[in-house]
């Protein structure tokens, strides 16, 4: 397919435009999805922490700790929640879900109940931890850790889908524009051929039908063709005489 250099540049322009759209919308999406998902996970985890805290009071005060463990084991099965631990008011760990044990970072770290804490646990990864007091802190507190990579994975999936869609639109756009460009370039190519013919002072008989077509067009290409023909006759006295004879006969 023949494409003029002018339109090749247009194609590059389209490509860069799509690239710009893809990158800019991805950046905006990453930011908004990250913000939205993180806040949603935090919100849900806080609700779960509160639910466990409310349900734990009776268990801690009246029942065996295996019931407490059974309770948190059910919640840790929820997607996105990586660990749960419960400490009492004396800062003793009453139940937890860590294997092979409670990480040093948590054992030695400062306990900040009610705040969102970011943790990097050796061998486990990065986590966002939320917490809730049990009986206003008089019994202890519940802490829930969410895996940050889970949020990152969700973002990757969302962005991946978006880039996939943009790529499809891009390729459809490229093929469509190639077709349109070649369609639009056809009369210009004919005009170019006609101009070359005139410049070489060749006889028009060889391409009489195409010359006829281009000279009878009503668009800019037709005007330019007739203008080229006029300049050609002005610069050639024989053609000018021929054209005058033709007019007189008419």
């Amino acid at each position, binding site marked *: 397919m023949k494409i003029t250099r002018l339109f090749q540049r247009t194609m590059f322009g389209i490509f860069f435009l799509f690239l710009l759209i893809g990158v800019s919308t991805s950046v905006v999406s990453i930011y908004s999805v990250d913000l939205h998902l993180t806040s949603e996970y935090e919100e849900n985890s806080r609700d779960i922490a509160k639910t466990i805290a409310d349900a734990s009071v009776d268990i801690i005060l*009246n029942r*065996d*700790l*295996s019931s407490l463990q*059974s309770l948190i*084991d059910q919640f840790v099965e929820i997607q996105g929640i990586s660990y749960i631990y419960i400490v009492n008011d004396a800062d003793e760990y009453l139940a*937890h879900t*860590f294997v*092979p*044990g409670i990480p040093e970072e948590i054992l030695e770290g400062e306990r900040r109940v009610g705040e969102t804490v970011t943790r990097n646990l050796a061998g486990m990864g990065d986590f966002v931890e939320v917490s809730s007091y049990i009986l206003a802190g008089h019994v202890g507190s519940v802490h829930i850790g969410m895996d940050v990579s889970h949020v990152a994975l969700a973002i990757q999936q969302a962005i991946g889908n978006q880039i996939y869609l943009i790529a499809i639109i891009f390729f459809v756009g490229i093929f469509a524009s190639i077709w349109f460009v070649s369609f639009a370039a056809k009369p210009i190519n004919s005009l170019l051929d006609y101009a070359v013919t005139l410049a070489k002072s060749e006889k028009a008989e060889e391409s009489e039908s195409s010359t006829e077509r281009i000279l009878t067009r009503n668009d800019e290409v037709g005007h330019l063709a007739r203008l080229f023909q006029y300049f050609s006759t002005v610069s050639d006295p024989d053609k000018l005489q021929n054209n005058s004879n033709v007019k007189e006969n008419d």
Partner: protein
Amino acid sequence: MAKLTRRQLAQSVLAAGAAIAPWRAFAANPTGQASTVPSGPLTDSGVTDSEIVLGVSTAFKGPSRGLGIELYRGAVSYFAHVNDQGGVHGRRIVLKLRNDGYQPVPAVENSVKLIVDDKVFALFGYVGTPTVTRVLPVLKKFQDRDFLLFFPFTGAQPQRQPPYDEFAFNLRASYKQETAGLVDNFIAIGRERIAVFYQADAYGRSGWAGVRAALKEYDKKLVGEATYRRGEQYTAVMRAQVERLKKVNPDAVICIGSYAACAAFARDAVDGGLEVPIANLSFVGSENLLKNLTDEFGTESERYSRWLVNSQVVPSYEDLAMSSISEYADLMQRYDPTPPPEFEEHDYVPFAKSFTSLEGFLNAKLMTEILKRAGPSPSRALLEDAVFSIQNHDLGIGEMVHFSPERRQGLDQVYYTIVDNNRFVGLTDWEGKFAT
């Protein structure tokens, strides 16, 4: 023709469904002990003219199958004997079996099916704390139907204390009693720095809480802890757990786990230089634990097994002077029960005798006694009264059994065993064996 009400229609459909249900005959096994499925239509009560059906959900498959299978084999050896003698008030005792693989969710689903679809008379012989702990609310949900859970293979507290104690009866001593006994003995011989290695679930937490409470009596705390995930195989690497515990330099480690994981821990502990007594609770399944080590190390396994001390809730199966032990040995040999064919995995080799199957045998023996006392027209509503009628009952193991509304656990005795000549034998001299 009288119109059927919707309820009558539903009952008719259910009865018809039960009648054509593909139950397989109890006596299908050539040994006469095959046991698992009732025949004939069931009523809502789980009792027919010829059968009493008990529902069992346990681990017949998976890493803890050794416990479920051995407990079942012990129970079946006694029920087969009872059935051969004419059953209880003319009714054979049959078991409707379901596999939960020692996982809580299947255990809950199985229990609902046993209650709603299978319409068993009572639940019997469950295995595990994480499973039973989740099943208890199911019993609460169906409390209007008076379902009871008999003799689960767990020493955890939830079925021993409110609000779920009224739905279960236990035969064995609790983990609290087992861990307290281990702590008492370790402290008595100067091993005061006690750490725990436990399964990260309700079972592990139950034992952990027992050790913690026992140490509190001595004004002491756990010096360290390490956990593993339920379902670990013997091939699991426990070096991370060993390293954790080595850091706190314990005098003894109490394990609250299953046999595969505890055997893996014992192996890695000794290999990692943590050479201290490693205690295991009865739930571990002592023979299966030892088998894992002997299968890998053969005669060299003594290097690992010499540190083992396992608490048991039944006497040694070698103590044939006790009438029930002798009867157990006889019936296990006579019936030699096979694992349930519908769940059989051909790589499992049953034990001729084991603490777990002995416990299953004693569970079945006491269950039979309860069914006898329930009379010729047993009903779930009156079953509890039959249990409470058991007062100072001689089960044939040297310890009397009695129940009451305040006492829903039959036995309290804890026994301690060590490995000698590739088998578990009674430990009498803690000082001589494990003194620092």
